[in-house]
């Protein structure tokens, strides 16, 4: 009875694992590799699966045999041996040899993961709570990439889009066949940039730089997620890499550069309340909403309400300071001056002072923000 069950379990284990080795789709196994690194990891894992699977079969097989045969109910008389130096040496040395055999390819894989030199282009990736920023260092432009599928809230059963939680407003566009070096850092807490098919996972450490590399084989969309717990919305900061042929990439890049040149705001421009408020709403929903919430009510105990806040409704200098320089008390409230343009900050502050139940009617102009730059918090 008991042995039957054990047999059954190990059979299931084996079947599942062998399908895992053969399976093309990602249901039972690592996702299909799209870079040399990912292939290396995939093959290494397959090898490990075989080795460990065989060890498991061997161990459980011998144990099952004993369980079936050497049982009291079969009147098997127990022997009394309890030592045998030879077998003990054998089963110390053989695992050692197996491990040595694993260590060799494993070492080579580690070394190639680490060889980040000789890159064709460099992307700086910055993790923020809860979004990624990509800077094309060779071309001097960059953008922020946010989750773009809707949050379902608590409404269950609503039809979810195909790439639920794995879609962003601006993917990282890259050329295929080029060695891309990533320079990772973070702004607030540790994040981790992980795209399974590219074979890359690297923590982004605030205040420090880390690097990683990959070279995408063929065009396609590759999706991943932040994989280091980074607070409330850790599950909501996806990564999408859009790999294009070098020609397509060049076209995209030129368009992007042109756009960057025209979109720059005139810092001296004086805005109207309505225009700033509208722009501020966008800035707010992209940057401030996760913490302070769309309702402006915050999350009691974690993030203060802005609706009715004495700071937001009081003297504007204090409001400007906390948004521009961040909070001294709680690092979660970051120094937005480093991330957002003068116009954006002016817009979001204007928005906050004129949204929900706040009706100050005040307009903050970009020039006032500009004046803060250079002064220290």
């Amino acid at each position, binding site marked *: 009875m*008991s042995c039957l*069950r054990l047999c059954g379990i190990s059979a299931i284990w084996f079947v*599942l694992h062998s399908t895992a080795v053969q399976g093309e789709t*990602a*249901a*039972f*196994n*690592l996702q299909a590799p799209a870079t040399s690194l990912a292939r*290396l990891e995939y093959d290494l*894992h397959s090898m*490990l699966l075989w080795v*460990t699977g065989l060890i498991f079969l061997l*161990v*459980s097989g011998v*144990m099952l045999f*004993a*369980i079936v045969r*050497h*049982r*009291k*109910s079969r009147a*098997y008389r*127990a022997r009394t*041996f*309890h*030592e045998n130096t030879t*077998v003990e040496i054998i089963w*110390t040395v053989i*695992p050692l040899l197996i491990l040595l055999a*694993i260590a060799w390819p*494993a070492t080579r894989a*580690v070394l190639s993961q680490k060889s980040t030199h000789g890159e064709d282009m460099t992307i700086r990736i910055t993790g923020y709570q809860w979004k990624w920023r990509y800077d094309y260092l060779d071309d001097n432009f960059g953008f922020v990439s946010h989750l773009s599928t809707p949050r*379902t*809230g*608590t409404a*269950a059963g609503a039809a*979810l889009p*195909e*790439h*639920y939680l*794995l879609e962003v407003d601006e993917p990282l566009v890259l050329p295929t066949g080029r060695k891309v070096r990533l320079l990772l850092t973070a702004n*607030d807490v*540790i994040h*981790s940039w992980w795209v399974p098919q590219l074979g890359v*996972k690297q*923590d982004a*450490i*605030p*205040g*420090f730089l*880390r690097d990683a590399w990959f070279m995408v084989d063929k065009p396609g969309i590759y999706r991943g*997620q932040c*994989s280091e*717990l980074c*607070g409330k919305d*850790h*599950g909501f900061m996806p990564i999408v890499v859009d790999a294009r042929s070098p020609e397509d990439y060049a076209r995209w890049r030129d368009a992007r550069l042109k756009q960057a040149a025209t979109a720059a705001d005139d810092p001296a421009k004086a805005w109207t309340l309505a225009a700033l408020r509208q722009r501020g709403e966008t800035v707010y929903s992209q940057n401030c909403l996760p913490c302070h919430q769309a309702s402006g009510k915050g*999350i009691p105990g974690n993030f203060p309400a802005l609706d009715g806040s004495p700071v937001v409704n009081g003297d504007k200098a204090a409001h400007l300071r906390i948004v521009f320089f961040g909070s001294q008390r709680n*690092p*979660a409230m970051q120094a937005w001056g480093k991330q957002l343009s003068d116009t954006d900050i002016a817009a979001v502050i204007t928005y906050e002072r004129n949204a929900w139940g706040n009706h100050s009617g005040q307009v903050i102009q970009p020039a006032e923000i500009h004046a803060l730059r250079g002064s220290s918090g």
Partner: protein
Amino acid sequence: MDLASNTAHGMVSAHKPQGLARWLFATNHKDIGSMYLWFAFCMFLVGGVLALCIRAELFSPGLQFFQPELFNQLTTLHGLIMVFGAIMPAFTGLANWMLPLMIGAPDMAFARMNNWSFWLLPPAMTLLLLSFIVPGGAAAAGWTLYAPLSVQLGMGMDLTIFAIHILGISSIMGAINIVVTIINLRAPGMRMMNMPMFAWASLITAYLIIAVMPVLAGAVTMVLADRHFGSHFFNAAGGGDPVLYQHVFWFFGHPEVYIMALPAFGIVSQVIPTFARKPLFGYSSMVYATSSIGVLSFMVWAHHMFVTGMPATAQLFFMYATMLIAVPTGVKVFNWIATMWQGSMSFETPMLFAIGFILLFTIGGLSGVTLSVAAVDVQLHGSYYVVAHFHYVLVAGALFSLFSAVYYWFPKMTGRMYVERLGQLHFWWSLLWFNVTFFPMHFLGLAGMPRRIPDYALQFTDFNRIASIGAFMFGLGQLIFLVNILYSLRHGKTAPQQPWEGANTLEWQIPTPAPYHSFNPPPQLETAENGVVLSMRDSGQA
């Protein structure tokens, strides 16, 4: 071998104290052990309910029951409560109950301090649970409490930090007690190299605890300083380093996982020989293997940090060292199997749990070896594969061994037999649903599902469903255990002094249930390996 006389002139205050005072002021290792075990079981239920909350939320994509910030608190507290509230106290409780009986000691070396070790647990756990209701909620940075995230959190984090301080004091005192009892209170004739493996395992575990709990205390104290006193230990702007936290934490954390594994090894090394009716195979190599695990566990911590970006040489060093641990652990597994080999086995509940342990712990160990290969860990770190790995070693490892131990020693502790049929049901139920719960998590991890997320992409739905169903069924099965224990405590069949044919360690040589005071003065023993008693004489009034 008459022990009745031995117990008659036990300790002077032979009368049992009564009422609440018996428990609150206890100095008796059996009373304190019982409190530890009950406390641990309650915490297991609490931690389990948190796990069920997690599984309920993950039953389908979308947010159903909990907001993300609350979900992270559930995960964090599930981990902390299971590790510090359930598994560690349960092992300490068992050591309290059984060690003196197994090595012929009158009690623990410091009986009063022993009581303090226990009574520090309820306050610490109260602080942890209290943190759910303070503004900002409980700590939400994972049980690893990584800075700088833990520097951001609300006052729940402060409660957690102080709870950890108290837990640390408790475990260190408990561990000192265990070490000193084993070194100094063995009955004459119980040589170190003849001690039961459980005593060896407890000894080395206790040593690990004394060595690493202070390190954890240091780590969380620095977090506290960063939070409130303006320091920048984990902040580059002030010359600190977030990764430093991880080094300090895992210097504690990796030995910690062996703190939850070694006593399990010890239990299995008592149970298997008993039901195989054959002495433990390779006793001395077991001792050496356990010791080398104890030593190696200090040299592998950075395998939890392969993707933090360390130099290739460091990755390689930690990879090799980690892989090396498979060797002594393998020695243990092989020794257990060799013990079963050509034994005369019977399969009562303790034996079933011990066999389940070996089978499933091996799976967990082998997935550990897969993780230890740094290049592969790049894909698996921070994914559900890791969750699968550690539940195989923690639930099917630590927890199953604890069930095995409780069934095994239940007659000696209570004087009654548990209900065998319910025990068998508990085992098969747990075995089945455990695998249904945690096996699919390997696939989830491989396919790219990160851990610690309240909501997931659609392709992960099926396996999450299966895991959630499994978890609820597994949890339900634990009620069988509770019912069995509660029923048997009052109505179980009266147990003989020697309920297991093959058990021949010291605790089985005294009356059942174990008398309130035992082995004072200690008996004169003649022993063989693994604590087997060859003869015992009352040493009388020396």
